């Protein structure tokens, strides 16, 4: 057994942290979260060209660096730490994995190199206005006629859907329900009949869009009708990726709390000397470290692509989202009045945590998945 990152992996973390500290300080996060696009094109280019981050876990034969989910997890953790505003999760996690899971070799070769270099921003559109995260939530039907597919309907909460060049859409073949008939399609962001509307997100650092499809011609990705295994796996991988990202944010707010508890003086003493505060910090550490254990283990399972993935994905998403939200809430409490202001970053993490908790399904949903998957 060896539950530790390798020296190369630690080096990757240092490099990414340095890059993000320089490129995504709080001032940049605040600037970008107020823009419509929500990311900085030159930073995005640098991420792709200098660090190769978008293609980190994409196989070399498709233009990527061929690293594993473990390295991807490290990068996401660092991004979560600084609340990087960029379509990375949408493109490098959601879309790239959907294509890897569902696409034919030919499609992978056609679509992935652009994503890997960062030239293409891609996303995955699956959730609909019903706000469901599972197969039953997919009601948009793909209509086939003369060998061509068209899509009509609505997708909601599509991360970075307003800027994506390439949209991977999860739909279903006509007349199917449940996990039957699940199908992947690709659509260009500027496709005819597609209307994209930016949503006002609670978490301003991560943009979402509503996509309305009106007879949009779509290209099947893989064989239509049999996409459920690929979709299910994509969701599990996304849950693992998000768990890692959340733990980066959780670690950051823990550090903020501890730092503040050391310097803020009331009653002539640092507030961290009061057990009420000290124990809060200790509990946060306990949860953050435990969350990391779950997230890292899940990364390994995803990297191995083994049978444990579905179980640990559900488990880590449930645990890490609660740990993250709790840490951000305590961080506000420990900061007192200042923690409630717009100027202080505490609320940015708090809102990211709540949104991440809900996105892909809340802890209750994931515990239900877990119960099913372990046969309860």
């Amino acid at each position, binding site marked *: 057994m060896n539950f530790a990152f390798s020296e190369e992996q630690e080096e990757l973390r240092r490099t990414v942290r340095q890059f993000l500290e320089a490129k995504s300080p709080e001032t940049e996060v605040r600037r970008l979260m107020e823009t419509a696009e929500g990311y900085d094109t030159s930073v995005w280019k640098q991420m792709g060209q200098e660090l190769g981050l978008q293609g980190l876990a994409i196989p070399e034969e498709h233009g990527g660096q061929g690293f594993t989910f473990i390295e991807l997890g490290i990068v996401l953790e660092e991004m979560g730490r600084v609340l990087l505003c960029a379509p990375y999760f949408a493109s490098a996690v959601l879309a790239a994995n959907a294509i890897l899971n569902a696409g034919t070799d030919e499609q992978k070769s056609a679509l992935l190199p652009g994503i890997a270099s960062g030239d293409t921003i891609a996303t995955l559109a699956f*959730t609909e206005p019903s*706000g*469901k*995260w599972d197969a039953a939530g997919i009601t948009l039907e793909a209509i086939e006629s003369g060998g061509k597919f068209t899509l009509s309907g609505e997708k*909601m*909460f599509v991360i970075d859907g307003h800027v994506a060049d390439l949209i991977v859409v999860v739909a279903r073949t006509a007349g199917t329900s449940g996990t039957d008939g699940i199908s992947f399609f690709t659509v260009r962001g500027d496709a005819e009949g597609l209307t994209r509307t930016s*949503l*006002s*997100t*609670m*978490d*301003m650092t991560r943009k*979402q869009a509503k996509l309305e499809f009106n007879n949009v011609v779509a290209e099947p990705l893989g064989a239509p009708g049999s996409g459920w295994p690929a979709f299910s796996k994509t969701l599990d991988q996304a849950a693992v990726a998000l768990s890692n990202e959340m733990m980066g944010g959780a670690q950051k707010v823990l550090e903020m709390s501890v730092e503040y508890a050391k310097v803020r*003086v*009331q*009653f*002539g*003493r640092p*507030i961290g000397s*009061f*057990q*009420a*505060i000290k124990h809060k910090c200790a509990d946060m550490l306990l949860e953050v470290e435990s969350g990391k254990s779950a997230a890292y283990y899940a990364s390994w399972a995803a990297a191995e692509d083994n049978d444990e993935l579905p179980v640990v994905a559900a488990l880590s998403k449930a645990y890490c989202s609660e740990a993250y939200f709790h840490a951000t*809430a305590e961080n*506000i*409490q420990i900061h*007192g*009045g200042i*923690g*409630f*202001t*717009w*100027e202080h970053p*505490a*609320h940015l993490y*708090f*809102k990211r945590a*709540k*949104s991440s908790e*809900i*996105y892909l399904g*809340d802890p*209750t949903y994931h515990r239900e998945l877990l119960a099913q998957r372990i046969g309860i």
Partner: protein
Amino acid sequence: MDFVDTPAEAAFRAEVRAWLGEYLRGEFAALGPGNGPSDETGWDVRVEWEKLLGADRWVGLTWPKEYGGRAANLAEQIIFNEEYTRAGAPTRLSFFGEGLFAPTLIQYGTEEQKQRFLPKIQAVEEMWCQGFSEPNAGSDLANIQTRAVLDGDEWVITGQKVWTTLAHRADWCFVVCRTEPDSTSHHGLTYLLCPMDQPGIEVRPLRQMTGSAEFNEVFFDGARTAKENALGPVGEGWKVAMATLGFERGTAFMSSQLAFEGEFADILRIAQKNGSAREPALRDELANAYAGLQVMKYNGMRMLTNLVKRGDVGPEASIGKLFWTTWHKRFGETAMSVLGADALTVQRSQDGDYEVDDLHYIFMASRAETIYAGASEIQRNIIGERVLGLPREPR
């Protein structure tokens, strides 16, 4: 124990109901209950509404008759709040003036001060804000550094207050200052009443995580107020401030607790509509929220009975404050769960600013409730030390 209205109480209830039935119409009814003491939506219409309340002495309900009040007892106050909430009437404007300052003034003010200030509160002609907290005096309120010195027949105030809710709306501030230069902690403080509209005062808004700016920094740079505007004895402002905090932790939030019933009804309606009320985990959450709400009410009634019998709420007010703020915070999380994926999005104001709807407002603003009016950690210390008699933490 008896929870049924006496004939006198029933008559009072009928009077309140009839009044609300007659006046709560049109634009006033359209305002809806709103979002607690610092909510500013529909401000001007609410001022008009509050003036109607004041004219018929519903503002100052509990004040002695000689100051324009109705000398209502606690039972009547509760009845009024119940009926007011049930009718869905607008959030009251004068939390700081009527809720905190007026009872302190009645307890500590001179006859002249009461005659000077109470009618203006009732007529909604003067709004108040609370100038207690400072950058280095939050939980440790006694560490106040803002100074006031007498210059002839005026106090001259210099220093900074922070988190001052609605200071930008206020005509007056009750501000606790250090008036004995070499004093420390709770000695040598004086509770001054200071007009806001003057060159020596600058109010700078602070934006909150909800996106709106309800609180402020207030800078006093040689601000002036008349010598007679000290409330209570000079040098004994701590005692007066503690009375205000007592009202803040105790009776002033009574009506907020009733407002929670409305919030619960709203969330339940949404949960039934979007189907989340059928999900076992959320049913449990909602039922738990309801149970907490009722227990909060029973707690409140017991606390108020003590108030009637003993004349003060005492440290037990901390139990109420800790309970309702903890409950409301969790309730805000329940609200987000009920919204499900819809919780991911908020509204935008017309000019594109971050703006939250009622449920997100509860979710976010409830975070402040365990911080202001004595943070939860402080409330627990009070309960431990003053209710249970545990030895004091080293401070």
